[in-house]
């Protein structure tokens, strides 16, 4: 019965083909440093899941953002756990993505034929930093407010176009409700979609080209 059902599905979905290409493939013998990529992916999934839960209660306005997070921490059942995981997951994700980049560099895995995998990886690294930067403002506490104040001041020092960039980031001359709304939408829509898309390309390239081997003395 079960096998009949699986066969029925396979005829329509081509499961066997997916299994053969994705799971049942030969890869070089590698060490534990090669788990950093999947660890980064896992952290991203955790951030998405906890982030979706947080968005249920979070209100992106200066009047209510802080209180809504106080409510998540004190009123919502296990809200403190979800926010705790999201908070520390962000830090761990930056660390893991960065070390993942370093491993790729030290093993020279970015060389032929994996140049594009590297380029998409750099996009993911920058997007992760962008997520950290935009997410940091959302609690609307002192630390967040002033960190974003200095963070958005930095591009303002660029000659000619600097002040323009700062006003785009802030949506005005000062940090305001507009800034919070922009950061919120970038944090929950723009960047996650970019990351999802680029992770898709990144993984396609990894499966197509195979994970690189640890370079030997003759490589």
């Amino acid at each position, binding site marked *: 019965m079960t096998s009949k059902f699986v066969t029925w599905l396979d005829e329509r979905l081509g499961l066997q083909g997916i299994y053969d290409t*994705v*799971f*049942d493939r*030969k*890869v*070089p*013998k*590698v060490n*534990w440093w*090669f*788990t950093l990529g*999947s*660890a980064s992916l*896992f952290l991203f999934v*955790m951030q998405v899941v906890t982030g979706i839960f947080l968005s249920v209660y979070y209100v992106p306005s200066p009047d209510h953002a*802080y209180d809504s997070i*106080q409510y998540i*921490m004190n009123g919502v059942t296990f809200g403190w*756990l979800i926010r*705790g*995981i999201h908070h*520390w997951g962000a*830090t*761990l994700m*930056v660390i893991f993505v960065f070390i993942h980049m370093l491993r790729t560099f*030290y093993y*020279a895995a*970015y*060389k*032929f*034929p*994996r*140049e594009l995998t*590297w*380029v998409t990886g*750099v996009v993911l690294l920058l997007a992760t*930093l962008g997520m*950290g*930067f935009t997410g*940091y403002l959302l609690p*609307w*506490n*002192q630390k*967040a*407010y*002033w*960190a974003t104040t*200095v*963070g958005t001041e*930095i*591009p303002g*020092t*660029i000659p000619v176009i*600097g002040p323009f960039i700062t006003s785009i980031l802030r949506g005005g001359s000062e940090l305001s409700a507009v800034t919070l709304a922009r950061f919120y939408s970038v944090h929950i829509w723009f960047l996650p979609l970019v990351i999802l898309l680029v992770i898709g390309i990144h993984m396609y390239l990894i499966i197509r080209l*195979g994970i*690189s*081997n640890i370079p*030997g*003395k*003759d490589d």
Partner: protein
Amino acid sequence: MNEEQKKGILEKYKQAKQKGVKFYPDIIYKDILISFALFIVLVIMAIFIGVVNEPKANPSDTAYVPRPEWYFLFLFEMLKYFPGEIEWIGTAIIPGLAVLALFLLPFFDRNPNRHWSKRKFAITFMTVIVLGMVGLTILAAATTPEQEEEGVIANTMSEQIVVGEELYSIHCVECHGPEGEGGEIKGVEGLEGVILDPINTEDVMYPFTDETLYNIIDMGQPNLGMPPFSTQFGGELSPAEIEYLVTFMRYTWDDRAELPEEPVAAAAIPTLAPNEVPSYEVHVAPIIKRYCISCHRPGKKNNNYTMGSYEEVMTSGDNAPNVIPGDMTSILLRTLHREEMENIGPMPPSKALKPELIAIFERWVAGGALNTAAEAAAATAAGAGGTTVPITATLTITGTIVPGSTITPTIPLATSEATQQPTP
């Protein structure tokens, strides 16, 4: 890289794959193991470290030391080496070039070799940069000045009400009275004799929304003499503190809102058992906090008598000492009994304390004006607070300056026309 080299690389990779393992289960098992370990680490961090509770954003707080997140600290630190005119080299040129170099790395690194021994320059270069970033981060963390102590952060509604009540006692009581009852203002510079309507009635609580109350405290009522209280307009309160104040007012005075039990318990002034010797810590401080501190704090007109701590209550002021242990003619007690003295008026200026509260002060002075609960407990045990008259009886005889019935024979009585032995 020519076609032959490419072919060689692909051929070698094929051989490595032949000698290799299957993705499932060999690789994926390691991945799942690491992911699971990460999950455990995350949960442990969330439970045992948690998220530090920060005060609400206060755009007018210029004293706050702004710092970016830790993973941007190295950039922040680097900017210190590009001061003034050349700052944009640190903010735009270097980060811009670094990102560009990272993107284009596979295209300008033409070295076909992959083993570390054949790419010593690249490895050294990257290692120096990473060490530099780590070093700058540590340096930035080490040189960050201590953040100044912020006000209390109230998490729950009950905590907000308790904090709001304390703020009310400090900032509002001098004009609006301890219960928001208003009346004639006395002893406040610039507002002497102004008569205030009560703010604890439905006439204020029903038409005024929380937002209105917030704005009134925030910006003041310049036409009516009320100064602005937010730091933004020169006052002392942060936005969060004004919100706590509004919460306190709403839950205490609006009969449509139900006051939770915890703040009621927290605001209650501890009662005295018949034989108990009161202490500053447990019995006197809460009364001072509620009724006196609004004026008796630095920066107010109060003959320099501040009441923020035991030491201040005992020793500060132009007329010090205002409290002499055992002396029932201490200035503090005489003012509470509304005696007019030179330079010293009755206290609190507009309305006498409730007799049971005055009784606590009297029994405290008579019992030796002790500081800590431990000292008072020891004195109680020794019978120093011994009185056979129950506290209710005390209330009935404290209308005039009759001492509390707490005076024991061991304490020498300072005689004055106002003190006398309780009749047995």
